[in-house]
């Protein structure tokens, strides 16, 4: 079923602000109507939590600091079924703990938003330093088959905008949705423009209908809430349309998991977003996301000044990946490079989509991606002379 859409005046006075990515994401959440936040302190995401404590007080929402991230994600799911627009913010180690709940949220089709301010890992890694190592974790981190949505902001403005989008997508598709920022964006301070009106999408809550199956083409059933006398059965075990556990029924399992995956895959081209810069005549295509895309755009500009036809393809949704757009943008280019602040994650997705050689450019030193790293990587390509 389709979400209902409302346009509301921005809770924060419209205009220009100078703030940090973490803070702007907190403001985006409030703008999106977030009224429940459960969190646990973690660098480099704590600033978001600290900001939203105050903003939820202003807007009469609920903040709770849980005992760990497993508690946070669990509380968010309970709150979401009680009608809240629930959110948390974390970083890699906390996200690892949340994975149990992410799988449960996917299985029970619970809308919620997690902002992941990525730091250099693995494990505790470098807590205050940037990385982009959680790309696969937000998609495949919990066991077995499910789908998620992840948006990758490259600016403080997008930290605001994409947090709103994440809430809306999460509600529309009843799926856990991530804002996958990196520390460089989370701690970046720059201008944010807050608009007059905010668009909010709400899950369909029609009563008296099966909450876990639908004949609708979009595959998204309505979601009644606790306390409405609906006698809901919500379970992470395989369940039928009404929520009864069917843990021995192969048909029910096939239909349920097929729908969980299918509702996102079928909508993938509608959800997927990207941006391109100078791709029309590009011989070298840089595919970059998050903070790395800023360095990539600088590299494109420098390459163009030296006469190299460089272009940038910036996926905005990493999950689902803008596949068709990438195919179009890469047609005819000689080289494709993927600079990332990890040892090669999105590069695999690009290879999978294009079935051709793609060159990873990795920078794993706990520093924000540098244009020189990308230029060096391109210099080393066969036949390239800079």
């Amino acid at each position, binding site marked *: 079923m389709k979400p209902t859409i409302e346009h509301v005046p921005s809770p924060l006075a419209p205009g220009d602000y100078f703030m940090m990515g973490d803070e702007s994401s907190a403001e985006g959440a409030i703008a999106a109507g977030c*009224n*429940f936040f*459960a969190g646990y302190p973690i660098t480099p995401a704590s600033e978001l939590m600290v900001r939203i*404590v105050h903003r*939820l*007080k202003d807007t*009469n*929402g*609920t*903040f*709770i600091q*849980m*005992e*760990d991230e*497993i*508690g*946070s994600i*669990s*509380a*968010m*799911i*309970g*709150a*979401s*079924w*009680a*009608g*809240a627009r*629930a959110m948390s913010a974390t970083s890699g180690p906390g996200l690892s703990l949340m994975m*149990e*709940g992410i799988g*449960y949220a996917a299985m029970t089709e619970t809308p919620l938003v997690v902002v992941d301010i990525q730091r250099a890992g693995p494990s505790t890694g470098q807590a205050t330093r940037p990385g982009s190592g959680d790309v696969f974790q937000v998609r495949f981190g919990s066991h077995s088959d499910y789908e998620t949505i992840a948006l990758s902001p490259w600016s403080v403005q997008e930290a605001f905008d994409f947090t709103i989008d994440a809430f809306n997508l999460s509600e529309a598709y009843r799926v856990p949705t991530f804002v996958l920022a990196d520390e460089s964006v989370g701690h970046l301070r720059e201008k944010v423009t807050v608009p007059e009106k905010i668009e909010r999408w709400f899950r369909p809550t029609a009563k008296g209908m099966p909450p876990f199956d639908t004949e609708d083409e979009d595959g998204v059933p309505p979601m009644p*809430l*606790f*306390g*409405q*006398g*609906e*006698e*809901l*059965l*919500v*379970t*992470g*075990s395989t369940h039928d349309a009404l*929520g*009864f*556990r069917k843990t021995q029924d192969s048909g029910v399992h096939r239909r349920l998991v097929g729908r969980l995956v299918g509702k996102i895959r079928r909508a993938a081209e509608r959800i997927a977003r990207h941006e391109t810069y100078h791709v029309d005549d590009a011989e070298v295509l840089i595919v970059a996301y998050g903070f790395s895309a800023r360095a990539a755009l600088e590299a494109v500009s420098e390459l163009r000044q030296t006469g190299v036809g460089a272009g940038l393809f910036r996926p905005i949704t990493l999950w689902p990946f803008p596949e068709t757009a990438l195919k179009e943008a890469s047609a005819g280019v000689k080289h494709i490079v993927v600079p990332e602040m990890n040892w090669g994650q999105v590069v695999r997705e690009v290879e999978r989509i294009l079935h051709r050689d793609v060159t990873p450019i990795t920078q794993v030193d706990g520093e924000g991606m540098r244009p020189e790293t990308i230029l060096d990587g391109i210099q080393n390509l066969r036949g390239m002379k800079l």
Partner: protein
Amino acid sequence: MSRRLYDHLRLNVFPTPYCTGCGHGILLGAVVRAMDEATIDWDKTLFVSGIGCAAWIPSPHFKADTLHTTHGRPIAFATGAKLANPELNVVVASGDGDLVAIGGNHLIHAARRNLKITVICANNNLYGMTGGQMAPTTPLGARTQTSPWGAEEAPFDLCSLVRGAGGRFVARHTVFQIHQLIKTLSKALTADGFAFVEVLSPCPTHFGKLNKVPTLGDFREQMKSVYIDRRRWDKMTPEERCDKVPTGVWCTDNIPLRSAGGNKMGGAE
């Protein structure tokens, strides 16, 4: 059970999946009766449970909103639901392994937080659903699949644990103390803060078979001799207490209550 109370059950899922002699069916009935005694609105009640035999008491048997969560997390799920909709009566019903082993951290923090939810812990002293492995509630020396020569680790005293963590209303009964149990559950459902009720429930299938208490009758005799009313316990010498466990209610007043809904704590700017 009075015919009227059947309205609160999803009769199409009965009989319960419980083994012969399992105490969880008795507890199921006790919860329904206590809900009735406390005149709780079933339409405004959310039952939350984790994973394990006891988690199936509310889900799917109760005709109310039920949230069957991941293993060990029902209290954390319940915390979110209660905060998001303070009008919900939120009742957690789950097992000892779920609430105290894998979910122990959530239990003690919920007790400390003192949000108004009721937690019913069905304690059968081991992991039943997975075949009878040792739990942090398995008595010292008791045999289980993973303590075949007797448990070497001392168990938690759940009521002391929760009281120590700040629990407002803490109680323990066996399923054989049925009248006290129903009365206590009904008080717990209306307590003005975090309420925890440990309910000793026999597992003849796994615990009984390895520990020479093969039938429900044997369990009743054994539990009667071990689990005694706390008024009797209070008068006993330390020597007399050594193999006994007190039952009853422990209330602690003046524990700050976590407000549900809105950030009302902290007062003025």
